[in-house]
């Protein structure tokens, strides 16, 4: 009787199309993502080249400094985007987002590489004495360099093959390096600015929130079974 009633019920109370959680990955998503990720780099390279060669002022009067900072900030944005994937996935249930985390992380490495190349080639202009002095005497450069070096192994193991070779567990453990990398990146930014810390604070707050999210989830998972036991106790 009940069964019969159920079948007679009007079909979709909320059909799957209306359900945000069951949103499937659009076919064009990865292509669009990759194109969008390339846009800031293309603009930065175009603007710097145009400013240096033809004296336009897309990046103002000091295009090398401005371009260097621009690429550094975009590195932080990509690190934040990478860290945001998991919370977003947990909130929306879009598990297909997970595989794009590696794309975002790889772009973070691409941007930090461009940031470093701008610094070494265009800013310091391969003055080895200065590069060595920066690296040995200036804490904010050491911290930035440490973050960059930590990112390299993550970039090189971002292929599906590497996951298989390392095994999911070890791969995950290695890629937890993104947490200290994010923190080092913000410290590097905060120490590099002359006085106005409002931008570093904004980036720092985003990263703090995304890391806190993980701590809270982890803590709740740890507590959950205990609470269940307590509730079940007489």
């Amino acid at each position, binding site marked *: 009787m*009940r069964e019969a009633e*159920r079948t007679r*019920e009007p079909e979709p*109370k*909320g059909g799957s199309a*209306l*359900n*945000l*959680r*069951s949103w499937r990955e659009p076919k064009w998503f990865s292509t669009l993502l990759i194109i969008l990720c390339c*846009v*800031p780099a293309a*603009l*930065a390279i175009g*603007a710097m080249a145009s400013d*240096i060669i033809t*004296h*336009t*002022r*897309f*990046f*103002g*009067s*000091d295009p*090398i*400094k*401005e371009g260097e900072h*621009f690429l550094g900030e975009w590195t932080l944005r990509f690190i934040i985007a990478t860290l945001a994937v998991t919370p977003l996935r947990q909130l929306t249930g879009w598990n297909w987002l997970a595989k794009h985390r590696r794309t975002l992380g790889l772009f973070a490495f691409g941007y930090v590489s461009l940031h470093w190349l701008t610094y070494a080639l265009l800013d310091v*202009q391969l*003055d080895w004495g*200065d590069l060595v*002095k*920066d690296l040995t005497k*200036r804490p*904010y450069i050491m911290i930035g360099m440490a973050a960059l070096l930590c990112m390299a192994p993550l970039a090189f193991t971002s292929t599906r093959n590497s996951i298989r070779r390392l095994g999911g567990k070890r791969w995950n453990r290695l890629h937890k390096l993104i947490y200290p990398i994010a923190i080092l990146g913000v410290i590097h930014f905060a*120490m*590099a600015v*002359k*006085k*106005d810390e409002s931008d570093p604070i904004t980036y720092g707050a985003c990263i703090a929130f995304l890391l806190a999210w993980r701590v809270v989830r982890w803590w709740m998972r740890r507590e959950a079974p205990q609470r269940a036991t307590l509730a079940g106790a007489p």
Partner: protein
Amino acid sequence: MPIYPKNEPRSSEITPEKLYFGRREFLAAAGAVATGAIAASVLPSVARAQQEPQAVGTPYGLQPNDKPTPWTDITTYNNFYEFGTDKSDPSENAGAFKTKPWTVRVDGLVAKPADYHLEDFLKPSAIEDRIYRHRCVEAWSMVVPWRGIPLADVIKRANPTPKAKFVEFTTLMDPKQMPGERTDVLTWPYTEGLRLDEAMNPLSLLVVGLYGRTLPNQNGAPLRLVVPWKYGFKGIKSIVRLKFTDSQPPTAWNLAAANEYGFYSNVNPSVDHPRWSQATERRIGEFFRRKTLMFNGYADQVASMYAGMDLRRNY
């Protein structure tokens, strides 16, 4: 046996029809906002097509390869934290700044302290156009055609008492007009100082103009200091007060970070800033770095004032 349908979404999970049918509009709006934001962040200063004026004035200490920096760079690439901390902030925010009427107070250890209308303050001196090298502590540099009067003229007229050893300069304190002064980026009002002999040096200039024109607000109108052998931040802007003292006055950047910015702040390629080298500089508009010169190329005129001083300690 479970009697509830298994795969039915909770009502909270169902997107309201209004939102669902408006999704395209939402995406379009989000796209427009994102495009705008990217354009705005990517092009902080769109190139201004503008006729660059011709530089006027007598060159002071210029090197053979020194050419005046274009007006557009000098007037859009500014450190003037009273109007914001980005280089483009001053030219964007200082447009409505009121520089008339302007009063300058001269007090402290002087024969007769007084307030002057700016016009009366300047009138007794002949205005000169001088082209100076400019070196910022951030390791970039320019060549600037300033217009102003020798600071020594003003000091002679003020007639300081024998006890006076320093001059302290103060910027206008007006948070209503200067949004930066509402933040705590620096201790406001901005102050700077010179030893009396430095202030009396013929190179020390009180500036009222640029490229033969009235000084633009973003460059420190209506009255600023220029001391070309020191880092740019010693050139205090929008001055309202000169006070003669017997002790070394506090200076804004020294208060902010004493280990990075000293009272003297003479350009010195062999004393690094803690966070970067001062050995080289980038001339705005040039690609290759240049060697920074001792006292920014003005050693002949100023080095004797620092004879016997340890410039590593007195940075």
